[in-house]
């Protein structure tokens, strides 16, 4: 069984934000919600690096643990799905998430954030909607995984900085790169998300 993960090779990311745009377009994500974002570190200085970040689909996901209605559903592939029917918009997952992944339609004074939205690994939601249905699309976006496709952000990344797929496989690809080119700034977030490191 595959364990789906994301890996961003920051030494390749050129901060083109195409992953962000592709995600918004593919899922028709509402205005103001960013399932994926690119963060630039040491901006304008030597050693500047950009990292594309979304939900990492953590091992023992902290969002799922703190959710007061248990609306999260980790799948067999290690993808962390959630149900918008069960979400009450309390905002706890945002406090627990190490990667700022959960998004809310509104600012949320007096607890009116609305239903949480986040990266689904292009795998739909945990609600009762049939896989690949219009209802599922409206709530969670397209279900590419059910069609045998990987997340679009990684699929269309022009430098192949962003990798998605089975954790062992993408770690192997990354290690090969590091060995070949002689350097690598590491698999960002892996220690926090998966409690493991990728070193070549």
């Amino acid at each position: 069984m595959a364990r789906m993960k994301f890996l961003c090779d920051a030494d390749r990311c050129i901060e083109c934000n195409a992953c962000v745009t592709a995600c918004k377009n593919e899922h028709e994500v509402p205005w103001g919600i960013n399932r994926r974002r690119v963060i630039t570190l040491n901006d304008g200085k030597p050693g500047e690096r950009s990292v594309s970040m979304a939900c990492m689909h953590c091992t023992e996901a902290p969002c799922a643990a703190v959710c007061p209605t248990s609306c999260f559903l980790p799948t067999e592939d290690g993808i962390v799905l959630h149900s918008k029917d069960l979400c009450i918009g309390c905002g706890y997952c945002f406090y627990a998430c190490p990667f700022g992944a959960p998004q809310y339609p509104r600012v949320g004074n007096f607890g009116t954030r609305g239903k949480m939205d986040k990266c689904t690994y292009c795998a739909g939601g945990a609600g009762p909607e049939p896989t690949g249905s219009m209802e599922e699309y409206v709530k969670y976006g397209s279900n590419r995984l059910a069609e045998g496709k990987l997340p679009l952000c990684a699929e269309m990344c022009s430098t192949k900085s962003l990798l998605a797929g089975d954790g062992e496989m993408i770690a192997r690809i990354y290690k090969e790169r590091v060995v070949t080119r002689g350097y690598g700034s590491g698999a960002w977030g892996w220690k926090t998300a998966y409690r493991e490191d990728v070193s070549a």
Partner: protein
Amino acid sequence: MRRLVRATPFMGSAALVVLVGPGLRAGAAAAEVRAPDGAFAPDANAAKEGVLLNQDARISGRIDILDRRADVLIQPRGREWEGYHETWLQPLGVLVILGTLLLLGLFYAAMGPLRLTRGRSGRTVTRFSPGERFAHWLAAISFVLLALTGLNVTYGKIVLRPVIGPDAFSAFAQWVKYTHNYAGIAFALGLLTIAALWLRQNLPTRLDLAWLRAGGGYLSETHVSAGRFNAGEKLVFWFAVLAGVAITASGVVLLFPFYGTTIAGMQLAHIVHSLTAIAFVAVILGHIYVGTIGTEGAIEAMVSGEVDVNWAREHHDLWLAETMAGSAPNERPEPASLGRQGA
């Protein structure tokens, strides 16, 4: 003409600075590290996760999104906050709240209620005005509501969700959340009024030490002198004021997320809020015990506002004397002004 000539060298150097400036500034910000042989080392200066996390608990950078919260790349503290909420808070709350209930139950079983030693006199004296009772009940009812609705956020998924099912529980929890968020206003108003009304009478006096030493008469069965509020009540008062401020302030931060706070501020507000809540519930359980089944005749003070004169003499002798003296000389306590109880 002369002026222009003199200005030229200055303009020239200004242009030079503009041309070279950015390069100079970047160089000044962080010297570029090169490989030992002087060659360009593409990764020598590269931002590294481990290094950045050693410098700060959070790694943040620049983003194109107009949302300040989104500039945090990694905050491993999220996992620590999860650990606080799931591994510490949950058992701690059960331990403190059920432990308090157990202790109170044992105490009641062993000691029973504190009875009026000389029975009732049949005459009453006014202890709390309608305004005082209103403020107290406003705080009390909203507190119980807040405690139950707040505890549903912590324990509902363990206790209630398996019983009523995920869909019903989420629908319930949604309303419970709104109730909690709005009941806070009533609680803050009630507590503020109480604090303003009773502040002066709750200032500590030397009598309080003697009262505390005698355990308030609960343990020694002797009656200790006290004014309008005894030392026990004063402790509850000051605890409620301090805890009330902490829980309201942190609650307001949670109500208006990310207004002048960062993710760290929100996590801290939540920790203050939930820890205060647990202590508050434990203290108020004790307060409810003393005010109801623990002390014969006490509840009447908050229900009708009238207490039996014997009750006042046993628990608040100095206050009773003061009340009687205060009504003199113009309003001599005629029997009519001391309401009669029973037929």
